[in-house]
C-alpha cells in the first residue's frame, strides 16, 4: 500500500531540474508522477518512478542529495468535490497533510503537465516556436 517516493534537494538555480531529469532519463527510469516544492533559495523535487532502487543509485552516484519517503496513493472520485470529500475525512480523523500533488494524468494519448511561467507570453511564444502543442484552456477544464 505504501508507495516509495524519491525526494531530491535542488538549488534554485537554472538548469538544476533539467540536470536531475537527464540523469533519470539516461538510466531508463520512467517518471510516473512528480511535484516541485520551492522557496526563494531552494527546492525539493519529489518523484514517483517505475524503478526506485535504480533511480536512487543513479542520483546518488551523480552526487545528489536524495532520500526515500513513504507516501500513499489515494484514488479520488473524478467528480466535483471528490478531493474535498477525502480531505474532509482526513480532517475529521485529525490527520494533517504535509503536502500533496496530482498524478500526471492522460488526455487521450498524451500526458498533461501543468507549468507556471514568470512570463507566460514569452513561454507561449517559445513553445509554439518549438512546435510543442499547448492545450486550449477549455480542453484542460474538461479533462
Amino acid at each position, binding site marked *: 500500500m505504501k508507495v516509495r*517516493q524519491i*525526494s531530491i*534537494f*535542488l*538549488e534554485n538555480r537554472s538548469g*538544476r531540474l533539467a540536470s536531475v531529469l537527464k540523469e533519470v532519463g539516461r538510466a531508463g527510469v520512467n517518471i510516473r508522477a512528480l511535484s516541485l*516544492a*520551492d*522557496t526563494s*533559495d*531552494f527546492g*525539493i523535487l*519529489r518523484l514517483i518512478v517505475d524503478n526506485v532502487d535504480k533511480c536512487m543509485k543513479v542520483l546518488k552516484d551523480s*552526487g*545528489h*542529495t*536524495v*532520500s526515500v*519517503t513513504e507516501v500513499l496513493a489515494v484514488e479520488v472520485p473524478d467528480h466535483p468535490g471528490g478531493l474535498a470529500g477525502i480531505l474532509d475525512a482526513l480532517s475529521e480523523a485529525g490527520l494533517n497533510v*504535509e*503536502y500533496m500533488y496530482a498524478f500526471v494524468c492522460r488526455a487521450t494519448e498524451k500526458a498533461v503537465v501543468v507549468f507556471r511561467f514568470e512570463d507566460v507570453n514569452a513561454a507561449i511564444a517559445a513553445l509554439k516556436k518549438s512546435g510543442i502543442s499547448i492545450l486550449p484552456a477549455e480542453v484542460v477544464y474538461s479533462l
Partner: protein
Amino acid sequence: MFNPQAEAMPVGELRKLQGRRLHDLAKRAYDHVPSYRARMQEKGVRPEDVRHIEDVAKLPFITKTDFRDQYPFGMFAVPHQEIIRIHASSGTTGKPTVVGYTRNDIDNWAECAARSLACGGATAADTVQIAYGYGLFTGGLGMHYGAERLGAAALPMSSGNTEKQIMLMKDFGVTVLCCTPSYALQIAEVAAQMGVDLMKLPLKSGNFGAEPWTEAMRKRIEELLPLKALDIYGMSELAGPGVANECLEQNGLHVFEDHFYPEIIDPATGEPLPDGQKGELVFTCLTKEAVPLIRYRTRDITMILDDGPCACGRTGRRIRRLMGRTDDMLIIRGVNVFPSQVEDVLVRIEGVHPQYLIIVDRQGNLDTMEIKVEVTDSLFSDEVRKLEALRDKIHHQIKAMLNVNAKITLVEPKTIERTLGKAKRVQDLRKLT
C-alpha cells in the same frame, strides 16, 4: 594636543622612558604570570637583562593562543581586588579573549582615548557622539571614558537606531562622531532619506575604526559629512581604541608610544623589520598592570612610516593604515569572525562536517555575510518547512555566537569549490585596497 609633554616628548627622552617602563613591565610579568616566566626562562632572559627599549627583541612573543590557553584569568598579574573592569572579544574557538583593567589601566586608556579625540581638534567644548557598541566590546566604553577625560560631553548612543542617532546629532549640535567608517556612511545615507542635510551640522571630526577601510571611503565620508575623517587603531588585548590615531595631517596613525611600543616583524621568521618595511604589527603595552602585554602579535599587516617628523609636532611614530591580516580572521561590521567559528556552529547542529563557504561583501555601506552550506543526506529533509527550520537554526546560532546576521543559503553537494588539500572557506568580495 591633549598632553603635549607626552605626545611631543623629544625622541631621546621617550626612548629612555620606554626602556625604564619595559624593565618594570618585564619584571611584573616575570614575577606574577607563570606562563610569562616559563616563556622567558625558555629564552634565557631575565628582567634585569631588559634595561633599554632595544632589549625588547630579547623577549618572547605572545599571541591570541596564549590568551585562549590561559582562559579566563591566567594572564592576569594582579590580585582580583585590583581589577575594576573586564572586557572580552571574540576568539577562535568560541571562548572570548579576556582582558582585565586596574584603575591605572583604565586611567591610561582614557588618557590615550582623549589624545585620540584631541588629534581631530576636539576639546572640552565639544559634544562627542559615541556610536560604537557599548558592552564587552571595548569601542563604546573606551571612547566614552576618553571623551569624559577630555572634558567633552559624551553622548553614549551605542550602535544602531540610525534615525535617532541623526535626530540627536542634529538637535544636540554634535561636533565629534565616533563609529565604524561603514556606519558613518550608513548615517549619511539614512540622513539623506530623512531629508537631513548633514553638511549644515557643526560636525568637525570623526574617529573611525574597528574595521578595515580605505582612502576612497575616507573621501566619501568627507564628502557626505562636514568633518575630518580620522583613522583610529586599537584592540581589546592592548586596551581598546586609542592605541594610535591619525592627526589632522591624515598621514598615518601616531602611536602613543609612552604607553604602546610598536614593532614590525616578518610574520614568517619573527625577525624585526626596519621602519618603512611592511610586516606584522607587534605591540608591547609598557604601562599595563592587570594583563602585562609583551610583544603581542596583532596579526595586522602594516608598516611604521619613516618619512621624518610629522608637522603636527607629535613625536610618536606613525603606522600606516592597516594593509591586511596574517590570518583568516574577517572583520564584519566591526565584529571579528573566524571561519572556524562558523564551522563549530555547523558541527554542533548535526554532528557532521558540512562543506561551507563564507561570502563577505559590502552592499551600500554595510558589510554583508552569506554562508553557503551544502545539504548532505543527514541534513536533508523531504519537507520544506524542516529545511527552512534548519536554515533558521543555523542563522540563529551564528547570530548568537558571532553577533552577525548572516544570510544562510542551502546549496547542493559538491557545488562549493574544492582546491587540493583545503576547501576554500572565505570569499571576500569587499574592495578595500
